[in-house]
């Protein structure tokens, strides 16, 4: 149930999706991987929209060079843990939601446990190895993954619904080289708010999601394009051919073991 205060706070969006929609947001649990350039607008807008339970994971400390884009963090936060800074700001934006912070680097050993049974995973990472990890867990647990990435004045976003749509690996089987990427803060602002819009639509069960489509934003030319893509049957993360070949390998290993006995 929404309190009087909540009903007043969300008045202008309850006009869009009613008390039921707002209650659905309140019940939701979203996992945000990263409290940086994308994680800032994503977590701020999910907070003010009243998404009731947000988990934010980041291991970094606020650095002066982050401040051109990571709008969760202020100059006075330099040297502070990003998640501590994030929690303070988000709770100040909206005291009616629960913020859970995790000061950790997401890796094979902890990601599955930390994601738990979230309703959605927001990819606000800055590297593909961790994105592939999130993609794998999303596939395994059937949790939607809201992908976003940026560089300079460019950005891209897509929404992955495991079992229904192509996955991140279908689209990007190989990671681009790692680099210290140039960026202006408005770019993660654009892409992060697109990801947030997708999360809200998904939780509300409304609108058309950015599924099997990669949205490409070019701030230089001020063009927004999209490219459709399909599931790759040979995808190493979600492909049916791959599942078949994995089960064949498992079967043959079992056979070998049996023969040894």
């Amino acid at each position: 149930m929404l309190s009087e205060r909540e009903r007043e706070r969300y008045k202008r969006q309850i006009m869009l999706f009613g008390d039921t929609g707002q209650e659905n947001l309140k019940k939701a649990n979203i996992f945000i991987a990263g409290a940086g350039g994308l994680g800032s607008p994503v977590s701020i807008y999910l907070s003010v929209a009243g998404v009731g339970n947000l988990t934010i994971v980041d291991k970094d400390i606020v650095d002066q060079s982050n401040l051109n884009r990571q709008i969760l963090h202020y100059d006075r936060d330099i040297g502070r843990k990003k998640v501590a800074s994030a929690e303070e700001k988000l709770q100040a934006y909206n005291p009616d939601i629960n913020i859970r912070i995790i000061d950790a680097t997401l890796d094979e050993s902890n990601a599955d446990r930390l994601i738990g049974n979230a309703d959605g995973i927001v990819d606000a990472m800055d590297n593909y190895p961790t994105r592939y990890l999130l993609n794998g867990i999303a596939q395994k647990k059937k949790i939607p993954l809201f992908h976003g990435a940026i560089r300079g004045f460019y950005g891209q976003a897509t929404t992955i619904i495991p079992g229904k749509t192509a996955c991140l690996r279908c689209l990007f089987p190989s990671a681009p080289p790692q680099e210290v990427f140039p960026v202006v803060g408005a770019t993660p602002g654009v892409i992060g708010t697109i990801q947030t819009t997708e999360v809200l639509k998904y939780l509300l069960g409304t609108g058309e999601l950015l599924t099997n489509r990669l949205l490409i934003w070019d701030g230089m030319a001020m063009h927004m394009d999209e490219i459709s893509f399909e599931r790759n049957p040979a995808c190493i993360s979600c492909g049916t051919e791959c599942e078949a070949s994995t089960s064949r390998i498992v079967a043959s290993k079992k056979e070998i073991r049996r023969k040894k006995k």
Partner: protein
Amino acid sequence: MTVKVRFFARFRELLGTDIIVSPMEGIVLSDLVKEVAGRNREGYQAIFDEEGVFKEFVILMQNGKRVENSAAGMTLVKDGDEIAVFPPVAGG
């Protein structure tokens, strides 16, 4: 035949986009992209390695369908095709 080649992000900066070309019949996808990208040295180098092979992360699409980089040398280009070439971005 007439084909449209679309470059995105950094590739667009270097090579432009929505380039309409009239290649020879029977041209394969990799040769088409080489021909168009060859107009700008830096653009070419952003897409191909020293051996003229697509860099691993470059994404190729033919009419909205992904073409594996390794298959681009065997994929025929047809009249009216729309080819998209883009680099995924990684930052967050």
